[in-house]
């Protein structure tokens, strides 16, 4: 398998009439045909609808129009993004049969930019998980070693890009659900500043933390996709009114004169092979002209605990609507309350139930002050801790995940160990800050390692600028072989 062609190049060729969108699509559908059985990245491949979209793009080019910056580029969507008339499942049985009557804002923007929606990707149920194993529709497998997890919760989107099923994908990141699977699958994944990408049409997990972001093979492609989906949306009250940073134009600006802080707390308890890649990335940045400092933000160590109070609290409320009354699964019973109970008992998986119960508990009278409100204070302290660090540094550097891809089944029965997969990604969600994971070679087992760059709110331009330098210095990754056992 050769390296996939960048989306930027594909769009340029389609816009110029040098290649047909339908041909681009058919190529990717063929790759999916060949590899999907081994990977199971998709809940649904939208071949027919995608062909219609691709033909429409070609027709516009033929008519002398410009279909937009993503002309003819196939994009895979995490299955928690609403698509009009197309099942949107969140990989849960509870949404059985539901077809949204509307498109998410990001989907509208993709289509307006000429993209072709190729399918809906598998995920942890309601984005609750770090391995895609909590999906009701089976586990997605890591294209670099199909006995291992792709990470999660956006494991399907990460695997789809890694396997060459689509050059671009969208995921959602509540505690690391874009960056961690990007790291484990060896692709670029980015969580934007809270409020820069509209959440309208993203099925909510934890509303104050959720943010949609791009997956791509390259930093430039991720920048291209971010520029398309970002910007104010009147349908989302938390959408920022300030202009979203344009990132595609700053990629070549380099890091000369920047200060990069290596975040010491993120290296605590991280596997040595992962830590080694982080130090190597720091050296590469130093070589490119950045000043490297060790920086401590002690508050981030509290992030995981605070997150597992805040996110389940919000989720317990967000997921209350799945009651069997209006849409999705209904399990009949003798009265309404019994029907609600039967529907939710059968429709939700174990991890979702665990978080609903945890969240209900932490919001309950008598416990709220001890748990939820305490977690909100921690959240404020984390923001303050980062603010102090950003008085000295432009960006922070650390690992994305503490380990490389782990074996399917290794952690699924041990929630606390599984939760630790997000220890390095959660603080950015709590702070509402942007962060990006960039592939940086492999670990001891030959599996991809991701390094993470963190910045203050609306620092996307700087992050992408630094990410481009990291990418240029990164050791090459082996091509995914879609079999068990990593290439070495």
């Amino acid at each position: 398998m050769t390296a996939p062609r960048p989306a930027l190049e594909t769009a340029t060729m389609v816009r110029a009439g040098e290649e047909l969108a339908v041909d681009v699509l058919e190529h990717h559908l063929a790759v999916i045909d060949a590899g999907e059985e081994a990977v199971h990245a998709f809940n649904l491949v939208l071949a027919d609808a995608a062909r219609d979209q691709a033909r429409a793009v070609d027709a516009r080019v033929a008519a002398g129009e410009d279909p937009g910056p993503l002309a003819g580029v196939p994009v895979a969507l995490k299955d928690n993004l609403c698509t009009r008339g197309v099942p949107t499942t969140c990989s849960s049985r509870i949404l059985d049969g539901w077809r949204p009557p509307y498109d998410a804002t990001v989907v509208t923007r993709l289509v307006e930019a000429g993209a072709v929606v190729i399918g809906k990707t598998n995920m942890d149920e309601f984005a609750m998980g770090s391995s895609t194993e909590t999906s009701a529709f089976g586990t997605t497998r890591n294209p670099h070693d199909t006995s291992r997890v792709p990470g999660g919760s956006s494991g399907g989107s990460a695997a789809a890009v890694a396997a060459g099923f689509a050059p671009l994908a969208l995921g959602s990141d509540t505690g690391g659900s874009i960056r961690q699977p990007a790291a484990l699958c060896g692709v670029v994944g980015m969580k934007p500043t809270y409020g820069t990408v509209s959440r309208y049409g993203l099925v909510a997990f934890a509303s104050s933390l959720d943010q949609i972001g791009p997956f791509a093979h390259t930093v430039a492609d991720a920048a291209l996709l971010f520029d398309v989906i970002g910007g104010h949306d009147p349908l989302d009250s938390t959408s920022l009114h300030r202009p979203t940073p344009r990132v595609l134009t700053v990629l070549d600006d380099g890091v000369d004169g920047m200060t990069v802080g290596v975040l010491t707390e993120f290296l605590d308890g991280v596997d040595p092979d992962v830590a080694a890649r982080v130090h190597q990335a720091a050296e590469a940045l130093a070589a490119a002209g950045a000043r490297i400092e060790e920086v401590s933000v002690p508050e981030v160590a509290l992030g995981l605990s605070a997150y597992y109070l805040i996110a389940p609290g919000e989720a317990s409320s967000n997921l209350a609507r799945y009651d069997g009354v209006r849409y999705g699964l209904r399990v009949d019973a003798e009265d309404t309350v019994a029907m609600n109970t039967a529907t939710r008992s059968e429709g939700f998986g174990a991890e979702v139930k665990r978080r609903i119960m945890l969240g209900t508990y932490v919001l309950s009278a008598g416990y709220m002050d001890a748990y939820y409100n305490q977690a909100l204070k921690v959240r404020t302290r984390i923001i303050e801790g980062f603010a102090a660090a950003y008085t000295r540094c432009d960006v922070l550097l650390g690992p994305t995940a503490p380990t490389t891809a782990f074996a399917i089944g290794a952690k699924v029965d041990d929630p606390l160990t599984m939760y630790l997969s997000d220890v390095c990604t959660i603080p950015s969600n709590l702070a509402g800050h942007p962060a990006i994971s960039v592939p940086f070679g492999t670990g001891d087992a030959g599996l991809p390692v991701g390094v993470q760059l963190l910045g203050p709110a609306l620092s996307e331009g700087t992050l992408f600028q630094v990410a481009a330098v990291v990418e240029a210095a990164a050791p090459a990754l082996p091509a995914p072989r879609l079999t068990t056992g990593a290439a070495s």
Partner: protein
Amino acid sequence: MTSGWQMVIGLEVHCELRTATKLFCGCPNVFGDEPNTNVCPNCLGLPGSLPVLNQQAVELAMAIGTALHCEIRPSTFHRKNYFYPDQAKDYQISQYDEPLNVDGHLDLPDGFRVGIERAHMEEDTGKTSHSGASGRIHGAEYSLVDYNRSGVPLVEIVSAPDMRTADQARAYVTELRAILVASGASDGKMEEGSMRVDANVSVRRSADAPFGTRCEIKNLNSVRSLGRAIEYEAQRQIALIESGEAVVQQTRHWDEGTGRTEALRSKEDAYDYRYFLEPDLVPLVPDAEWIRAVGDTLGMMPAERRARLVALLDEAGGASEAQRDQVTTVVDLGLDDLVVAAVAGGVGSGLALARTANEAATDADAARALDPKSYLELLQLEADGSLSATQAKAVLAELFARGGGDPADIAREKGFEAMSEDSLAATVAQAVADHPDEWGRYREGDDKLAGFFTGLVMKATRGQANGKAVAAELARLRG
């Protein structure tokens, strides 16, 4: 009220705001449409939908706060979590510990001041109808839910526990309704559920005693039900205490048919709503300029309107008890501008008020639609004796029927000409001749008999005679 006891009453009034669209989406806010036609992903609580706050709703809520003399403050929205089929998201977005309006008051027409603790914004639920005769969920075979009302903007106005009688509670709701209508916030239609009242009632032995345990009464659909329910509930609590039992803090349901309240749920099984800050909305922080702009658009409130009419009566020698009632009627119906215009046009305040409260009030919609100039002309014709009271009433009815017109033309069409002096004098003389005894007493100074003779003349002329002219003729004959 049983002697030796005092009631303590606080009221929570839910008012549907008269906005064009719902609180968090663009669906029309209208009553009575085909079920589930004014709905969208947002008010159906579909996955991925998000709320966007309606500016008009905020302005009406601020208008209510201004009219109730509240402080308007930076506020936030919370989620109130509970499962119910008509609750589309299984949580309600409501203001909780940081409401928009706080610390106001409402003065009853008799001057009694009721504190307003808060007036906060929230969204309405859908409407469930249960099959079966009782119309309640227990024993129903199936239930139907209409989400047209889901997300309709509400303001909940919470009074302080300041009221001490059912009459005060009735007066409070009546006055509040008038204020809500006058501020443009509500149509005030209790029968359509635009205003819904819950009453918190407790009793105590004396005004100095601490508050007793209260019960909250729901399902009060009219001012009359409110009064009955409060009286019943107070008696129930007194009977309990006097028989040595304790009042249990409960939510109770008023049954209009049986005239009783029944327990719905007690404090122990009250819901835990798990309020937390709504993460899909940002704080609502009205600046001083916005608050002032809303205040500037607010019209005169009922108390001010009543005072305006009473002042007109005072100029003419003071308002009687009956006239004060007429003032209340006229203001409640929004007809006071007609009275003010008539008095400004030279008509006596007593006549203008009486015609408005007694006649115009019978068709208030038509009266509000009438050109005030036509109304003034009519009252002028009556005042100067060109039309009798009976004739004036007939012309007004015709003005209403036609939706306007020239009162003088209508009077001519109906053949209403002022009686000639000669014919009036002859009629009066006939009445005097027919009743010599009464005439004798009248001549000796029994003025009450003037009314007797006027009545006879009116009867003989079928009301066509001008009362003032009759009185003048009687006085002339007496010498």
